[in-house]
């Protein structure tokens, strides 16, 4: 089925096809449309979902936690400060091993208040124990949301999943999109039959109790193991999804990387811009390529190292400022991944696009220009720079 939908519409439609048991709803730009579209589905009887319109995101995530603990499938959507307000509960959801699915429509975190896109919201939650999958466009936002439950609900994973898309750029822009038939979606998602849940009389259960030091660490290790196991499961689910959709997904997407000497590592919609720049550069004989990170948690470190092993210079493009004084979060992960390589490419970090600052094909070409220079001279120059800002002289 070919359609034209915005990213928010596409995800709301995926939710409708899934027909979850519970939605915890609270509005925040730019994710607001998701609970709005869904409210119509509920009111029209198109889904059987219990729709709980609460007073804050702290409560919407609490609703999801409680519902999931009771054996129900729960979903919600949020952005920016909304995700920040959930922060306490994100850790609770993950450590209770409750596979909630959250549509995170990325938006810059206050302050200053800004409603446009960057990853400061979900990057702040990167260590919360949630699987994080990022979409480049509406199609991927829809597909990733459909794959989330089969990934998160698998017994050896049992982790919540954040399906992320770029605020406004993806959430509000209307694009052509292929939708699956609802029957196919239902078969793909299957029934949710958790082994343990509240009010199962054969097996009384306490969820989220106090954990003393002789046990706490073992539980954390189990959570860490689950995150490791998620990697293989994500690929399994992607393979099954390819069978019904014809669309291929990996932990990341490699674009013209076969013989690439200069490469970018980045996430989300900027990949579209980068691909256009790479096509142009390739025509001029520049061996440019791109790795678009799709799965940020679990981080595909070894796989990324293999993908970048043949390159000479790599620019990581971070669309969030980590304030680590040592580069952004994607840069830190990529550095860590490459450390094990015997021969490492030169590596720089370019922080860009904060609060929705636009990035154009020419900007990406400039980054490749810098990489070409690094590869030619062997001089890395400044490693951690900000692109497209006016407060200081531009180095990138």
């Amino acid at each position, binding site marked *: 089925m070919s359609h034209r939908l915005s990213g928010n519409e596409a995800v709301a439609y995926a939710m409708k096809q899934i027909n979850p048991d519970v939605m915890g709803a609270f*509005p925040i730009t730019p994710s607001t449309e998701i609970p709005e579209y869904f409210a119509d589905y509920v009111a029209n009887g198109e889904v059987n979902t219990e729709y709980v*319109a609460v007073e*804050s995101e702290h409560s919407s995530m609490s609703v999801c936690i409680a519902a999931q603990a009771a054996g129900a499938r729960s979903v919600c959507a949020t952005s920016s400060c909304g995700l920040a*307000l959930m922060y306490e509960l994100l850790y609770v959801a993950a450590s209770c091993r409750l596979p909630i699915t959250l549509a995170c429509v990325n938006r810059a975190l206050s302050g200053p208040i800004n409603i446009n896109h960057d990853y400061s919201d979900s990057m702040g939650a990167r260590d919360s124990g949630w699987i994080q999958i990022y979409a480049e466009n509406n199609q991927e936002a829809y597909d990733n949301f459909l794959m989330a439950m089969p990934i998160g609900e698998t017994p050896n994973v049992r982790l919540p999943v954040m399906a992320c898309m770029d605020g406004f750029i993806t959430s509000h822009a209307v694009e052509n999109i292929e939708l699956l038939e609802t029957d196919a979606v239902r078969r793909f998602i299957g029934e949710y039959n958790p082994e343990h849940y509240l009010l199962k009389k054969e097996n009384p259960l306490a969820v989220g109790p106090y954990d003393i030091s002789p046990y706490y660490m073992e539980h954390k290790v189990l959570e860490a193991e689950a995150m490791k196991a998620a990697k293989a499961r994500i690929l399994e689910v992607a393979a099954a999804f390819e069978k019904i959709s014809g669309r291929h997904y990996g932990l990341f997407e490699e674009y013209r990387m076969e013989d690439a000497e200069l490469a970018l590592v980045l996430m989300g919609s900027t990949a579209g811009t980068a691909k256009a720049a790479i096509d142009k550069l390739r025509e001029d004989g520049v061996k440019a390529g791109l790795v678009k990170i799709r799965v940020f948690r679990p981080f595909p470190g070894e796989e990324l190292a293999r993908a970048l092993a043949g390159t000479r210079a790599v620019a990581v493009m971070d669309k969030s400022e980590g304030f680590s004084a040592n580069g952004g979060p994607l840069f830190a992960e990529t550095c860590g991944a490459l450390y094990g390589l015997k021969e490492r490419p030169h590596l720089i970090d370019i922080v860009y696009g904060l609060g929705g600052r636009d990035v154009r094909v020419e900007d990406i070409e400039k980054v490749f220009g810098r990489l070409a220079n690094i590869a030619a001279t062997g001089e890395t120059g400044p490693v951690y720079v900000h692109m497209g800002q006016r407060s200081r002289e531009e180095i990138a």
Partner: protein
Amino acid sequence: MKTVFKKPESLTDAQFHYCPGCTHGIIHRLIAECVDEMNIRESTIGICPVGCSVLAYDYFNFDMLEAAHGRAPAIAAAIKRLLPDRTLFTYQGDGDLASIGMGEILHASVRGEKICVFFINNTVYGMTGGQMAPTTLLGQVTTTSPYGRSKDNEGYPAKMAEILAQNEGSAYICRTAVNDPPNVMKTKKAIKKALQTQAKGLGFSMVEILSTCPTNWGLNPLDSMKWLEDNMIPYYPLGELKVKEDR
């Protein structure tokens, strides 16, 4: 020449961004007039909410501080305690005050914080596109209650003035509306009385102002005023609910 009408000094020259017929603008002006008339512009600090009035700092001609969604009372209280000779007010919508900020407002009142709260109740989350708020009336259609709010599912609309009037710490609680000139004048009187309550150090004060959101109600400005009168005032009765006398 005699001046018969002028913009209060407490308003800047910036043009309001509010939708046509939105009553946020009227209320801004009333607050500004009261601050001018009481001659306290130099010592007034306002706290902006998150909501349609998030840019209120562009319109008020005195210091303003931006709060996170719902947290304005905590911020106002902190400044008031540190600078007790200043006049502190928060300007909050019903989403900001009665939903996400329910905790802050209750506790500011429980503690008897000597601040003024101007609470703009338009029964919806205006800024995010008209979703159901705790103040949405029964049967009212919003983007998250497409067939109207139902008491069985979403409960009854919160009466914030009545709730806060119960607290000992509340010194002045009043509900007004801005649907017609007499009510606008009463609203101004209430705003001034709240500011005077603070000046006298009597405790917490709040004026709940029934307001309109023509855009999200799907009504023109005039019909919105009528809708307020016909639907909101019967459920949210106007008048003073608590007046603590001078010590």
